[in-house]
């Protein structure tokens, strides 16, 4: 290498003998991970470790998040936003300067289209939910439902990206990465940000990318299946693995030092420490055998089942129980999802897939006392049009003007409905909540001022909410 090294530790040892002793102490095997990095970095360990636990801006009840993302665009007027006037005015022609119909052949005229599902009030609070979510309907007393969500884009890619990163066009760090960056992780033996998804969404890996934030904050993808996380069983005795890891860390650290602290290389160095811990932590975290029948049935999970949203929900509980900061559960991928252009009836199996598991998750968290420190967020990328180009059209189109999301758990006001759409569910008219506002609120619930959680990149401070965002105080307990 021609470049000068800025790492002189190895050559500053006074004698060969002393150096050998030092090396031996490093590699001797008595030193078990995860202490290696602390050892090597000395006093700088905390500064070096991007995942060290950090306090938020102000005390908050929520310590971790489970973020439930329904991909494709869930129809609000068929699920959480009852619209009697839409039923009454079914078939009536309306005018709307809507992004999905502009200049679109066959869409010169549009007509209101009613929901085919009944709504009824539930719980003490009386929040109305459609028959698509019979189990979740029983949990409304825990939920702060926002019926006035709106977003900035009507394309799947952009809206999905926006919901995850606050940017509707460019790659930016995802909300989970921001949380990991802001809070660090309680459990060095597990990734701080885990995404459990059977397939990729429309925005692919950008949904959990750390982008310019240090790579340790990137989401680790877990695909449901018999081996959700591969290679967690060590093939060699632990003392030997520790010795090898110490030597590897020493080599890699020197390599990193020669390369000006390339963040990617640094992330890689750090990832071995997490990986080492995962060998113990992962099998234990994913071991659902120890869950009793009552718990499994709460989620609607068959014993031995290793896929499905019920499995994802139960694993999510176990992960946050073990200190993972941010768990995102994605229900489907970029096909066969909630994108019901063709027929609203495709919402039936999708709702069934998540209804009991989510209700089970809320109940399980509550009975364990975990709901007091876990924030649960349910959302989608946009809603669906309350109209179509014929009233009999069986599907609905993308609708960025209005949709429903909900929050539950730590710091959230229980059993309320915030905001409203107009009588037909076309626009969020009362107390509209933009995606940026939802992000600001989530950050607030986690103890952050969304304007102060920033990262300097390419000459400016970036934040999740860009230059937008308003905390929705009405949903705070």
């Amino acid at each position, binding site marked *: 290498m021609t470049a000068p090294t800025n790492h002189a530790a190895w050559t500053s040892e006074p004698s060969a003998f002393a150096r050998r002793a030092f090396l031996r102490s490093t590699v001797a095997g008595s030193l078990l991970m995860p202490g290696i990095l602390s050892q090597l970095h000395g006093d700088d360990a905390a500064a070096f470790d991007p995942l060290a636990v950090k306090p938020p801006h102000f005390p908050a009840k929520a310590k971790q998040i489970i973020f439930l993302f329904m991909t494709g665009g869930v129809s609000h007027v068929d699920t959480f936003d009852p619209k009697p006037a839409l039923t009454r005015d079914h078939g009536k022609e309306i005018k709307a300067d809507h992004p999905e119909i502009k*200049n679109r052949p066959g869409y010169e005229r549009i007509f209101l289209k009613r929901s085919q599902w009944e709504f009824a009030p539930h719980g003490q609070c009386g929040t109305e939910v459609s028959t698509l979510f019979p189990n979740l309907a029983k949990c409304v007393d825990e939920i702060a439902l926002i019926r006035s969500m709106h977003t900035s884009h009507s394309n799947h890619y952009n809206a999905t990206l926006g919901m995850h990163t606050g940017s509707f066009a460019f790659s930016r760090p995802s909300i989970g990465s921001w949380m990991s960056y802001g809070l660090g992780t309680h459990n060095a033996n597990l990734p701080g940000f885990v995404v459990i998804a059977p397939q990729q969404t429309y925005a692919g890996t950008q949904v959990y990318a750390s982008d310019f934030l240090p790579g340790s904050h990137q989401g*680790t993808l877990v695909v449901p299946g018999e081996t959700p996380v*591969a290679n967690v069983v060590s093939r060699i005795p632990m003392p030997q693995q520790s010795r*090898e890891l110490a030597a590897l860390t020493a080599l890699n650290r020197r390599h990193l030092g020669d390369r000006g602290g390339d963040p990617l290389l640094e992330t890689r160095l750090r990832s071995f420490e997490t990986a080492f811990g*995962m060998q113990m932590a992962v099998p234990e975290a994913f071991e659902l055998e120890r869950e009793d029948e009552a718990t499994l049935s709460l989620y609607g999970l068959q014993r031995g089942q290793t896929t499905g949203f019920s499995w994802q929900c139960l694993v999510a509980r176990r992960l946050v129980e073990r200190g993972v900061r941010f768990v995102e559960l994605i229900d489907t991928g970029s096909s066969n999802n909630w994108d019901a252009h063709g027929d609203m009836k495709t919402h039936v199996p999708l709702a069934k897939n998540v209804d009991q598991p989510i209700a089970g998750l809320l109940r399980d968290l509550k009975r364990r006392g975990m709901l007091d420190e876990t924030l649960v967020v349910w959302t989608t990328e946009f809603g669906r049009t309350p109209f179509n*180009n014929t009233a009999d059209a069986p599907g609905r189109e993308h609708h960025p003007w209005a949709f429903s999301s909900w929050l539950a758990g730590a710091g959230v006001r229980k059993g309320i409905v915030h905001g409203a759409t107009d009588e037909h569910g076309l626009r969020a008219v009362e107390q509209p909540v933009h995606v940026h506002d939802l992000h600001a609120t989530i950050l607030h619930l986690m103890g952050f001022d969304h304007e102060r959680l920033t990262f300097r990149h390419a000459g400016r401070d970036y934040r999740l909410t860009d230059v937008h965002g308003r905390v929705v105080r009405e949903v705070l307990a």
Partner: protein
Amino acid sequence: MSGQRLAATRLQWWGSLPRRRCAATVLVAAAALFARPAVAAATDAAAEAVFEKEVRPLLVNRCFKCHAGEKAGGGLSLETRDGWAAGGESGPAIVPGDAEASLLMQAVRGDALVWRMPPEDTGPPLSADEIAVLARWVADGAFDPRVATASIGGMSEVEAQSWWAFAPLAATDPLGGPERIDALLNAHIAEAGLPVAEAADERTFLRRATYDLTGLPPTAAEVDAFAADLSSDKTLRLIDRLLASPDYGVRYGRHWLDLVRYADTAGENTDRPLPHAWRYRNWVINALNADTPYDEFVRLQLAGDLVRAGEPREALNEGIVATGYLAIARRFGHDIQKDRHLTYEDVIDNLGKTFLGLTTGCARCHDHKYDPVSNADYYALCGILESTRFAFPGCEPQGQPRDLVPLVSAEEIAAAREAWEQHKATYEAAVAAQAATAEAGAGELGDLLPSQPGPEPVFPLAYAVVDAEPTDVPIQLRGDPEQLGEVVPRRWLDVFGGEKVAAEAGSGRAELAEWILAEPLAARVIVNRLWQWHFGRGLVATANDFGSRGEPPSHPELLDWLAARFLAEGGRLKPMHRLIMQTQAYRRSSLTRQAAVEADPDNRLLARFTRRRLSAEELQDTLLAVTDRLDRSAGEAHPFPPESTWKFTQHGPFEAVYPTTRRSVYVMRPRQRQHPFFALFDGADPNASTPRRETTTVPTQALYFLNDRFFHEQAEALAARLTAEYPPPPVGGSLAATRIHQAFSLALQRAATNEEIELLSVLVEDTAVDEVAAWTGLARVVLASSEFLHVD
């Protein structure tokens, strides 16, 4: 648009550079096309504010009910300036600057001579304030920015015609060497005041270039030879050696397979194997090794069967196999015939992105929202695909594969079949006759029998396409195949002229290829990819999107120069590699101070080289190479279960991982269940075009280096190699040091430092099991090191 434009810009895929020399001046000066329209003057801004805030809402709310849309009342449309200027049955509605003379004002004021507007049955008269707003607006000149522009998809025709990516290549002399490229790059670096990294050392350069062109590390012998070579043209000779290596096609073929989302399964609900798709994969690799001119490379993939029709069998077969590009399109759903509109979308999306950097697939359900691709354009292309018979991979309700294309002539097949059947018949007759004789109690068995016939002859097949009955297809409203609109003739995209497929021309695939190749866009897109493959980032960072949502080029003049040069080189890639790899920019070190990195985090200006992680394929191939277990032979068919045994269902889909020690481009890549190794290390998505590999760094990758079986096996093999090649007792010097040097030489292409030898000797000494176990531990450390995994 149309014919004229095409004539001016149609690309010529010229032959050699000298012939091109005189053609250089032919290129039309197009620099002006890069310039943006002038910004509106400040006075316009004020007038525009008035119009937007006061006038437009008034027109929309009070007039549009009748004077807008197709049936504008009285023939008057107030939707655009042209609308009111032309006026309706009573003449122009507005005389700019003269409110009194304007019919519009007379009408809203209810002057006696014209109809009062709005009519009484439609709404109340305008208020005095509203009338005053209109009067002031008209008196001030009736500023109205609403132009009735014809648009194509999501762009106005005007904008589309001047879109930088579609414009003719800037006039430029395509001559010159690597210094031309450096000059263009260095100007931007100097402008930004960035410090330029020094040249990388020889070993780093050798490693970089070797991985870049072959996906493998240099061997120890190559390192030594390069170091010992003192000649001045050693770099060029190195590049030429690498370009001539068959491993070049493996590496660059993989780049292409990423783009065309190559897979070995169909992707429908049962994810059936495609036992013949490998021929296309190998064709790509061979075509790149042969440096097939890019125009031919594209033409064959879209219409090889047509353009090679009538040629000798070998040439024809090449053409047939190349159309595997179309055949490998993803299949969808349960009954793939019913969902073939989704397969067409997959093809249209892919060919738009791959060849033109255009997201054409977006136009299936509606006009493209941002780029000039209309819904009708989409169905014009769809007709070409509907006029093509795709090899059918089978699916759960439709049974086994069919419509594969034989690679021998029908006559040969018929002749071979006939011969076989005759043989069989003769044999059976003989058997029967003998049996009869035997029954009659006479004669010996076996003596006079002809040889037993073999199994029915099989012929090599290609997973490919051929022309079907030509047909135009109707628009599927909102992408719904059940709701049909107007039939669209098969033709090229409107924005590029919209030329129709001639009546006698067949499907139109051959025309499609020529239309694509005629666009300057096609040349820009491929040279941009080439640049990205060398530097990690394209001059256009969004290599699959040159449309309005993509990023503009960082160095537009360089992009056009490269495109012009590429044409001058006859569309051959190898001379371009040679040129780019000789630049100073390519030689720069990646070791820079953090400050320089922060000044240009994405390294757009290339003041340094971008360090990269090995791709999944490079990692696996290197692990096999350093242990000398890499099988360099080309893979062919995968060991799929025989077709006759297939009973795949959506609940029991095909699923397999076939280990191999060949180059990993030959690994079987399924669509539905990503191969776990490639999924872990950011391999290409076999369901969508992958223009650029992402690099994630996650603990699950670290777990691979800790515990993966294959990784451990390679470490064991390396240890075995070290201990076998350097058995004790040592002949002078330290045995441990010798072996550590050897491990470094194989894995990292350099000698170990004294510190490294000390550190690793301690590791080996302390692993007090047995010798091989100790050296296996060392091998694991070296093979898991960041230096092993990254290219500087």
